[in-house]
Structures are given as C-alpha cells and as structure tokens.
C-alpha cells in the first residue's frame, strides 16, 4: 500500500476520502490534534503518510498544529490540518497569519454543534460565518462545502489546488454527517486528476509578497533570504508598520486576489430553476434533503428550483441573485440559527421574500417532509 492514488470504486467514510484526497493532492505533511468528528482524518493520515514519504504528527493543541503546517508549507511542502469547531476557534490566530504571509495550506473544519463544546458528536452547520470572518482584520476567505463522500474527496483536491494557486489558507467546511457517512466513492486514475503547484520564483526574483498577481513563493533554505512576517510588509517582506499606503496596497491585494478571481473560484450545483415557484439555497449535509423535496413538491404541483453552494466563500452571489429572479420565494434550510440566510438576504436584496428554516441540536437533519411543509407554507404566504 505505498500507492499515492488508490484508484477504483470504494466504500469509504467521508473523513477517509478527505485523507486519501490529500495524499492525491500531494500533501506530505499533516499536523493535528484529536477532536470529534474530525479525528479519523488525522488517524488515517498517520497510517498513510509514512507510506508515501510524508509526515504526520500530533501536536499539543490546534494552535501548534496549524503553526507546524505553516512552517512545513514554507519548506515547500503541501500541508494540512483537520479539526472541528473548538479547534477551528483556536486556529483563527494562525489562519490570519497564513492570510497575511500568503501561506498555502488546507484547514478542514468538520462542523459539530456549538458554541463551545456543544454536543461534540452531533452534526451542525454553525461555522459558516467563522470560516468567513473568524480571524481579525481585512481579508477574503475561500471555503468549500462538500455534500457527499465523493465531494469530501473532490473538494479536498480542489482545496489544495486553490491554496496553491492563490497562496492562501483554504477551509474545507465539512460537517459531521458527511465526514462520518460511508458511501460509494470513485477515486480516479492519477492521470485524470489535476494537481496544481505553487508558482516558484526565478533565481533573480526578489519580490515574494503583495503582488498585483499572486507572487511566486520561495521556500526557506533555498537561498532567497526571505523575511516572512505577520506585520504589514512590502513586496520584499520587510516590515512597514507606519506607512498607510503599504498597508492599503497589501490588504487590497490580499482581498483582491480572491475577490477578483471569484468567478473562477465559485462553484455550485443547480437544477433548472427557470420559472419555478420556490427556490432553495442549501449547502453541505442539509442539501441532501433537497433532491427528494423537489420530487415531493412536484406531486403537489409546486415547482422547486435549487442552488447548492459548493463554495460558500466566495459566496456565489450571481447565481443566488439569478434564482431569486426566477422564483417567487427563497427558502434557506441550515443546521444553525441563520447564517447563510443573511447572506442570501443580502444578495437577493428584497427582490423576493427569503425564508429561513433552521434546526439545531441532537444532530438531527432537516427532513424532506419538513422542507416540503415549509415550501407549502411559503407558497401560501406569497400567493
């Protein structure tokens, strides 16, 4: 079992699919701290990484885990950590550092209920806004939301590719249901998989940060003598803590490289929502109830269109606006007390009513019947 890609059809757990996809992506360093429901990712990589010349270590906490990942990334390695809400909270400090230093890395957050310890083993979707705004200051995040074991695999690869392309931390915002579920998954042949690597500098290059385009990234020990700092810095990495223009340019570039490329980054799934009665905007585990709901509603002569967010950040604004223009009401089901709902409201901007459907606690899913009931109720309201 020293293969890097275990091609074929498998019956895997979501967390295992994520771990195997990391190896496929070229990840050779994992540092993590045990936490339900993400632990299996670290366990599987502790078993697999040594077989493929990689290293997996368990650190003393989540802060140290992301710290080691950042250090590893600066040696040129692709690196990842995996955690859940409480650990994700601890990591926010170094996620900000990774944004500021333009360090590619992947942070998997398998969501459970919160706040705080919450119900540690139960599914939740309450970290959506934390994935966007978790660390302080100005930045733009990328967060992907898988809704199947197959997507735990596919989106992990995409997370690494985006991290390398844009030199930024990327969050795989999974949830307990998807991570612990076992399903059929197809792992392609290695030549069918696109793996992106960071742009390396030429020997004469000196500017490694703060580029209008994404700057090339040297590794430590290559002779570039690169100063890396979380303080405001110019394109050479030198600290500039008083100059307003340097800070503005740096932050505009950090935000710009994600914002200006959002069309390339944004990904979603839809059905044909033209002229539908109702639109549903969903993501992650919650979206799995939507497919059946569409059929159930059809039997009641209600047409339902949907947008499923595969990237939560950047938010697929155009598509969400589009479904609002083609339906009479939008429903946003999620396992939290309204997070994506507010984002949909912002984008739809009063064009049609946006109705939340929230459920929390016990890890219970929103069922197709509950979603249908909300659809029927909403249709009556807007008629």
């Amino acid at each position, binding site marked *: 079992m020293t293969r890097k890609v275990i091609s074929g059809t498998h019956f895997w757990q979501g967390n295992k699919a994520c771990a195997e996809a990391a190896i496929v992506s070229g990840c050779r*360093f994992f540092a993590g701290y045990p936490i339900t429901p993400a632990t299996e990712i670290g366990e599987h990589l502790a078993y697999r990484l040594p077989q493929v010349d990689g290293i997996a270590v368990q650190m003393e906490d989540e802060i140290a885990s992301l710290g080691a990942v950042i250090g590893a990334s600066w040696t040129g390695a692709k690196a990842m950590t995996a955690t859940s809400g409480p650990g994700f909270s601890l990591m926010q400090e170094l996620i900000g550092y990774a944004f500021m230093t333009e360090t590619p890395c992947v942070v998997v957050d398998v969501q459970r209920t919160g706040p705080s310890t919450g119900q540690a083993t139960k599914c939740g979707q309450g970290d959506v806004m934390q994935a966007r705004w978790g660390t302080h200051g100005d930045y733009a995040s990328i967060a992907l939301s898988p809704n199947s074991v197959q997507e735990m695999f596919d989106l992990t690869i995409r997370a690494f590719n985006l991290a390398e392309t844009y030199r930024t931390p990327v969050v795989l915002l999974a949830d307990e249901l998807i991570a612990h579920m076992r399903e059929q998954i197809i792992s392609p042949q290695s030549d069918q998989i696109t793996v992106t690597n960071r742009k390396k500098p030429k020997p004469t290059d000196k500017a490694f940060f703060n580029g209008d385009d994404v700057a090339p990234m040297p590794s430590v020990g290559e002779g570039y*003598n690169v100063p890396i700092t979380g303080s405001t810095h110019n394109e050479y990495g030198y600290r500039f803590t008083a100059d307003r223009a340097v800070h503005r340019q740096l932050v505009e570039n950090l935000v710009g490289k994600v914002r200006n490329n959002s069309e390339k980054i944004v990904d979603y799934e839809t059905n044909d929502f033209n002229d539908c009665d109702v639109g549903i905007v969903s993501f992650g585990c919650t979206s799995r109830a939507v497919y059946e709901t569409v059929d159930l509603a059809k039997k009641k002569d209600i047409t339902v269109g949907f947008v499923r967010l595969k990237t939560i950040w950047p938010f697929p604004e155009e598509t969400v606006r589009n479904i609002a223009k083609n339906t009479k009401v939008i429903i946003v089901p999620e396992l939290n007390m309204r997070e994506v709902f507010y984002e949909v409201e912002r984008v739809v901007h009063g064009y049609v009513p946006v109705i939340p459907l929230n459920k929390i606690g016990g890890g219970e899913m929103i069922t197709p019947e509950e979603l249908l009931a909300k659809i029927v109720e909403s249709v009556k309201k807007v008629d």
Partner: protein
Amino acid sequence: MTETFTSRKYLRDMSLPFCVGCGCITLINHFLRAVHELEYEDLSKFVFCSGIGCAGWIPSPYFKADSIHTPHGRSIPVATGVKLLRPDLNVVVFGGDGDIAGIGVGHLVHAARRNLGIMVVMVNNMIYGMTGGQVAPTTPIGIKTTTTPYGSFEQPLDVIRLVAAAGASYVARWTTAHDEQLKEALKKAIAIKGFAFVEVVSPCPTALGRRAGFKDVAEMFRWFRDNSVLLEEAEKMAVEELASKIVVGEYVDRKIPTFTETLFETIREAKKSAKKN
C-alpha cells in the same frame, strides 16, 4: 578561521531597533560570533523563527537569512514544521520570556519533551518590554511594573528547570555579563542535535531597569555579574541564600534520541511493512 569577526557580514544593512543598553544587541553579537567560530560563512544553513516582543526582532528582518516572524508565542510550532521537513537546517528560535515562557510555554514544554532538534534562545529581561513594562512570568516578587503598581505578587517561573525536566539535550543559562560563557553555550546549542535551550538574562533599562531602581544600564550589568552564582556553587547553598541570585551554568548536556531520529526511523519501518503487505 583566518578572517576576523564582523557581525556586519551576517546582518542586513539596516539600523537595529533596540534601545540604548538593550541586551538584545549584546546577544546578536555573541550569537553571530558563535556562528562565525563554527565557520559558517553565511546564514544559508539557518532558518530563524521568532514571535512577538523585542527579542522577536533579533533575526527579523535584520539577519541576512530566511526568517519567519510569527504571531505571539507561536514561533516554536512553526519551527517544528520547518525542522521536520528540513532536518538538515539549523532552526533557531529567538524570543523573549513573555513570548517563550508566557503565551508560548505550552509549545516550549512539548518541543523539549520531544527533544526536537531546534535551538531556542530565550531573552529573559523579566518584563514585557515592547508593550511598556508589564509584569512577566519571570518578574521577581516585589518589582513594580505598570500592571503591578504596588509590586509583583506572583512567584516567577524558573524556565530553565521546567525545560530541563521536560526533556532537551542541552539547557544553559547565562547573562549578558558572561561574554565568553554565553558565546560558548550558543556554539554548543547550535552544534547539538537535540533540543537546545539557552536562557539569556538580559537588561531592559527602559522598561525594567528604571522601575527596579537601577540608575543606568551599567548598574544592571554589574548586578547581573555580581549576583550570578554558578550552578555548582548554588547546589551547596541554602534556598534562602539563593532567593535573589541568578543561577547560571549548564543545567543539561546529554545525548538522548532526537525527535527527527525516532520519527524517521518509524517512517522507514512503516514503509518496509507496507511494502511487505
């Protein structure tokens, strides 16, 4: 070693940010002299990691080298990632007592426990200098700081003994008044394979000296010199006698397996058994 030593060779052409009398300047000289005496022509075999606080500015960006200036207390975890992927490089952490023994103390203990082959230089000025003189985990009892205006009422931490108990291959404490001993300790710490910890008791005339009643940095310097007791002598002294002394010397110098040695051995075994299956 025919060439005479000049620290300029290893430094960027920038002026250092430290206050007059700051021990960080002395330490830079000793460290770079140690590098020179070990016959490193440049710092290309070094990676420096540091956190927040005055001592975090020692390598970043002044050393002509790769330096990773991390958030407060996180230099050791980042150094861990670098060392595991590049065990061939000398990974050196500089930090103050607040950075290393306050906010980052958890990481310090675990790096020592693992005997990770990095070197940590802790500049102990017994105060939070950069933020203007607040009580530190190392501030002696009774010292007035901006957050203990009536005098510090907390037991300070003996960081050296903590690190020695946790693990580590090499542990030493000297003050900036111990030129030769400090430089030799830094040389040993660079050369040794396992975790090396050097505490440098260092004057902060700006934030500590004036509040602790020292009239100038020279007086602080003399106090370090006259108040230091060699470890061998300290072992014969009573606890009360040692209360206000700085116990200097080599606390640990031992050969034990390093983290990378045991890790890579495990990886070799894992690959062997994977191939068999």
